[in-house]
Each structure stands twice: as C-alpha cells, then as structure tokens.
C-alpha cells in the first residue's frame, strides 16, 4: 500500500451532504429499530405482570384437603371449626399450620401435620380452569375463579359473526372498486372507504348503543339489543374498510396482461375475475381477511359498548356476551395493583397478545408468499 492511499486526497473531503446523509441514516435506523424495541417492551411488561400469576402457588385448605382430613378421622367438631379457613391463602405451609393450630390447638393438629404440609399446596390460577371454565369471578369472596372460556366464546362469536358480514362485503367492495369502477367513481369510493376506516371505535360503539340497540329490540322482538348480533354487525362494518383497502391492493397487483389474455379468450368479466384474478391474488385476499380477524379480535371499545358485557356462553346471536378485551378495559381500573385480580387481567392480556401475534404473523407470512411470485 502506497502512502497516497492512506492520506486523504484533496478532492476527497467529507462535506455537508455526506454528514446529512449519515445523520439521516442513523435517524431512520433508530425509527426502524424502535418497532422491535416497542414489541419487546410490551411483551416484557405484559409477561412480567401476568406470567408470575400463572405459576403462582399458595397453601390453603381446599375441599380436597377437608376430604382427606375427614378420611384421617378428624372429629367433626374440629372440621367445623376449620371451615372458616377454607380457601384462605397462606404464603408457606408453616403459616397454614400455625393458623390451624390457632383454631384447634397444637396437640390436636400434630396427627394431621404431615398431611397438611403435603397436600395443601394450591394454585389460584390453573390453565385448565382458564381454558375450560366459563366462570370469570376474580372478585369472589369465597373462591375467586379465573375461567376465561365465556370471554373467549364472547370474543370468538362476535369476531366470527363480524367476519361473516365483513368478508363478503369487503371482497365485493374490493372487486367493484378494483375491477369495475372507473375514473371518478373509483377515486371517490377509495377515499370514502379510507375515511370509513378512520372512524374512531367509540363512535361505532355509540352507534351500537343508541341506534342498533333499539332497532334490534324492535325488529327481532327481543328483550335486549346489546348482544352478539349488535356487536358483530358493528365490528363487521368496522373491519370491512381496512379489509377492502388491502384486498383491492391485492387485486391491483395482478398485472393487466393477465386480464387482457383471459378476456381475449372470450372469458366474461366475471369469469376473468373468478378464474384468473382472484386465484392470482389469493394470498393478498387471505391476508386481508386475517388482518380483519385481527382487528375484530383486538377491538375493545365498540365491543364493550355493543355486546351487553355480561358473562355468557352464547347459544344464539341474541345473547349478551363479554369479550376478552372489554373485560380488561372494564376491570383493570378497579383491580388493586399487584392483586390476583390485577394479575389475572394481565394473563388475559398475554393470551390476547399471543393470539393477535399469531394472526398477524400468519397474515404476514401469507403476504410474503405473494411478493415472492
């Protein structure tokens, strides 16, 4: 290497443009990276508050412990005396035994000590209950229960109905805007659809509450108009615009030469769309639907206002239900920070986060699929 290479050349100076370029690159890099930071941050926050609860355990006299004590021939008088302690949580087994000794006496407790230490371990939260019990009673005095089945059913039924409405509606709109509408009609429709997507969800909730509610009561002659049907309709209308926009983009991505080639073969407009354009944009359309599902799943305010917010395993679309998101929104404010209730709500949060993550991830992978072609 000669000297000339290592000493700066007189024409080779870093000027303003060079520094601006570097600075912009760094700024843009920070902005880009921030998404990752936020995702990780949110995940850590939710997990920190919620995961501990999933594995949390304490010592308590549960029903099964009482049964065991009975088998061990504990006298009825002692059993009755212990009844007020049922379900009460203790940090260690020692605390529990002290409490029992306080009630029935040290000597009387001795024969049962081993059993109490071995069998009184209890978990306030169980995954089995979470997924199979419809009973969501986190504030119960007797025994708090954290069953999210009814909430999941609520969210699923509302989202499902919303998709039944939104999918045909948005695909139809996308096909009209993308394939048939021309010139000003097309531009106007696109602007209006985007405007529709920007309406705040509380406005939709308000519509559900004050317009749909009396309408449903009147039309279907049911006692309550805040139910799966109401929320499903509202959510369907909310999700449709964004789905339309994405589906239309997918249709537009199909090159015109495909349409021309098919038309030249004597295919009708409908045949061209159905046999060529839709199969070619299949991935984009699936992604649009999945993003709609994600939107419906995560929607909170409108669902809180339109479902009726009552815990129910719905058997018809006229049943009121409660959604996962709405539960968190409604209860988090009144739960003491760090309490079981508070943590249980974060557990719901983890579940929501995972499902939304999964849906978005699938949508993204499907979208990636089209770009490859």
């Amino acid at each position, binding site marked *: 290497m000669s000297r000339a290479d290592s000493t700066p050349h007189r024409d080779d100076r870093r000027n303003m443009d060079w520094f601006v370029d570097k600075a912009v690159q760094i700024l843009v890099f920070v902005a880009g990276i921030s998404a990752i930071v936020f995702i990780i941050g949110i995940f850590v926050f939710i997990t920190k508050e919620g995961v501990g609860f999933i594995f949390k355990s304490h010592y308590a006299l549960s029903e099964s412990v009482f049964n065991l004590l009975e088998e061990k021939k504990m006298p009825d008088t002692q059993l009755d005396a212990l009844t007020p302690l049922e379900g009460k949580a203790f940090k260690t087994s020692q605390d529990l035994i002290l409490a029992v000794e306080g009630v029935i006496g040290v000597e009387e407790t001795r024969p049962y000590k081993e059993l109490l230490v071995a069998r009184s371990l209890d978990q306030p939260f169980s995954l089995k209950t979470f997924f199979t019990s419809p009973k969501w009673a986190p504030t119960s005095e007797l025994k708090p229960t954290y069953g999210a089945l009814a909430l999941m059913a609520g969210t699923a039924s509302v989202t499902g109905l919303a998709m039944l409405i939104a999918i045909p509606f948005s695909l139809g709109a996308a096909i009209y805007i993308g394939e048939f509408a021309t010139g000003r009609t097309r531009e106007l429709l696109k602007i209006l659809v985007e405007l529709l997507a920007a309406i705040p969800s509380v406005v939709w909730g308000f519509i559900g509450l004050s317009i749909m509610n009396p309408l449903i009561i009147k039309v279907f002659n049911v006692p309550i108009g805040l139910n799966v049907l109401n929320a499903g309709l509202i959510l369907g209308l909310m999700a449709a615009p964004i789905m339309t926009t994405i589906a239309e983009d997918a249709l537009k991505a199909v090159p015109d030469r495909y349409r021309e080639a098919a*038309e*030249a073969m004597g*295919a*009708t407009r409908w045949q061209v769309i159905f046999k*060529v354009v839709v199969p070619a944009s299949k991935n984009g359309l699936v992604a649009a639907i999945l993003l709609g599902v994600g939107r419906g799943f995560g929607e909170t305010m409108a669902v809180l206002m339109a479902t009726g917010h009552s815990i129910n395993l719905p058997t018809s679309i006229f049943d009121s239900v409660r959604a996962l998101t709405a539960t968190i929104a409604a209860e988090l404010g009144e739960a003491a920070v760090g309490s079981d209730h508070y943590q249980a709500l974060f557990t719901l949060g983890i579940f929501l986060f995972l499902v939304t993550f999964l849906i978005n991830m699938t949508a993204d992978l499907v979208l990636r699929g089209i770009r490859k072609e």
Partner: protein
Amino acid sequence: MVTAMASLPHIDNPVKLAVKDVAISYGGRTVLESVTFDVHEHEIFGIIGPANSGKTSFLKTLNRMDIFNPSMTFTGQITFNDRDIRKWRNVYSLRKRIGVVFPLPVGLPLTVYENVALAPRLSGVTGKADLDIIVERCLERAALWDEVKDRLDSLGSLLSGGQQQRLTIARALSQEPELLMLDEFSIAVDPVTTMRIEDVLKKLKKEMTIVLVTNLVQQARRLADRMALFLDGEVVEVGITEDLFAGQVKDQRTKDYLDGRFG
C-alpha cells in the same frame, strides 16, 4: 401478375374477415387509417410494418378489445363471418372464435394444464377425460407436449420464455379458433423455436385462418400467402407475398421497406 394469383389456392376461398375503410384513433388522434383488405379462409395473411405503425391497435379492434380502452375508437367496417363485429351482440362469443397470441408470452398464473384447459372449461367442457385429450392435443400442436408432459401441474409462469410462448399458442388453440392472430410472436423466442412454431403454423393453416403480425420481413416471406404493409399510419400496400418480393409493387415505399432500404 395474373399467373401469380392463379398459383394461390386460397384466393377463391370464402372471405373470413373483411376490413373496409377502417381508421383507428386514440382520443381524437388518428393512428391508422384507410385500411381495406379481405382475409380468406385457410390463408396466412401477413401484416408487416415498423413499430408504432398501428398493427397491434388494428388487431385489438378485430376482437373488440378496444372496448377496454375508453379513448380508443375505430370507424369503418369490419365483418367476421359476414357479420359486422360492431353488431355482434355477445362479444364473448366473437372473442372465443378468435385466438390471440401476444408479443410477450402471457402465462396465466395457473398450472400448465389449467392454462390450456381454461378456455374449454369456460365453454362448458367439464369431464376430466375430455379435458385431458384437449390439453394433450393443443400442447402437441404447439410443439410443447414433449417438454412439459411430465410437469403439467407446475406453474405456467415457471416455463422458459420460449416455452411460455408456445403455451400461449396452445392456449389460443384450445379455443378452437376460426381465426388465429399472432402479434410478433417471435420477439421473445429463440430462432430454433421460432422455426418450429413456423412449421406448426404452416400445418394449422389447413384448419384455420391466420393473421400474422410481424416486423420480420423474412418471416412474412416464409409464411404469409398475402400481406399488407402498414406504414406511417396507413396501409400502403396489399398484395401476394411472392409478387411483392418480386418487385411488383404499387408503392415505391414497399419495395424500399422489403429490401431493407427504408429510413
């Protein structure tokens, strides 16, 4: 000249396509005018001319693809099977009778099999066995069968350029067209494949009428029975290919163009 005409057997065939005083314009700007000629059944009619001389626009009007471009209008009269194409009530049935091969191959985003089976399906052929026969026959005639018979289920767009062009031809043939229009089909095809397709076209002539647009003068000479020269937005010459190459021209520009002395 009279002797030369007698040597052409197709000239006595019925007229398949009659073009009379056709002019094409985009938004008021005329790109092609005074096009008048007849195409007879079972002949290959060549249209030659430099780029931007209105050849593709002309083909578009023949199967009413002009409808898709609102600014495109044409005047004059074109009859197909003695019926004015403007009066054709079901434009789809007109297009089904006319097969088109585009300059650049357009493999639809379907499998090789589905590319060829699409047109028969649209016409209501549903039986798998019937479709199999049509697909094999069309690919065979487009000189593609041997190369793709083992990969009928792979995407048509994954074939090589030359194969895709032959796939397009197979697809056009699957319509069982009465008229086949080829628009500079050899642009994206290697010379060997071009010769193979040209051989196919010579055979196909027995079954259908062919309009061949090309900017290769020698290709027109090899294939076309008669041909027209599009130049500067008008048709300067229509005649029997042999005669034109023999120098029997009405317009000096034709001779210059054919001899490659143009521009």
